[in-house]
């Protein structure tokens, strides 16, 4: 399993370079340096491209971040039981943040 999760860490890194680059570019620099407001964000979130971009960012950003945190934990010589507990905690945390993030993005229009 570790080989696959490690490989997905690399895949998520490649995707993040593109998706995060677009996110920063569109949100912070596309408006001539002027900050966006609620109306601008809502107009953007109504387009399939922007909502997909944000959801992809959430999925791969959270995976990359939390698996990175797990990799730091693996550097310490921990027992099998501790590894399972930490892995389970990070998976639960990741899914909770993903659920809340998607809920926040989509339910803005509810």
């Amino acid at each position, binding site marked *: 399993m570790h080989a696959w999760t490690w490989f997905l860490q690399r895949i998520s*890194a490649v995707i993040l370079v593109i998706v995060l680059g677009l996110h920063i570019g569109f949100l912070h*620099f596309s408006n001539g340096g002027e*900050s966006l407001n609620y*109306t601008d964000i809502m107009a953007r979130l109504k387009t399939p491209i922007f909502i997909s971009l944000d959801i992809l960012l959430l999925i791969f950003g*959270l995976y990359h*971040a939390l698996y*990175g*945190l797990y990799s730091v934990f693996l550097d310490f010589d921990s027992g099998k039981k501790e590894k399972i507990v930490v892995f389970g905690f990070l998976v639960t945390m990741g899914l909770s943040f993903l659920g809340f993030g998607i*809920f926040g993005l989509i339910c803005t229009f509810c």
Partner: protein
Amino acid sequence: MIDIVMAHSSRLSHRSQMWDATGMWAWILHRITGLGLVFYILLHTILMGISLLSGKEGFDATLSVLMDNPVFELLDIMLLGAVLYHGFNGIRILLFDVGIGISIKSQKNIFRIFMGVAAILWFWSIALKLG
């Protein structure tokens, strides 16, 4: 006497190797920026989620604090620096994984070039933000 000189020389050489180790510092900084970014993405998800759900007034109030406060502007600049460093060093690691630039000399050169590009992008972004 020769033994003492050699032992001293070896210690100096070891210390010099340690402080010259670009890869070691690149790795340490990758870890530090990574941990900072983990903290940020979790905070950003919660804050943006709550702000979006609180409606126009709540969202605009949050955004005005984040965008107009000099402390948050400074943190934003530092965040961008961390993202650029972590991203470009990450690309270097990916290239290494697929067998590009394996030698120590290539690694150092790739690192210097990538850090140069990251620094240019960072200063350009700061100029755009403050200009």
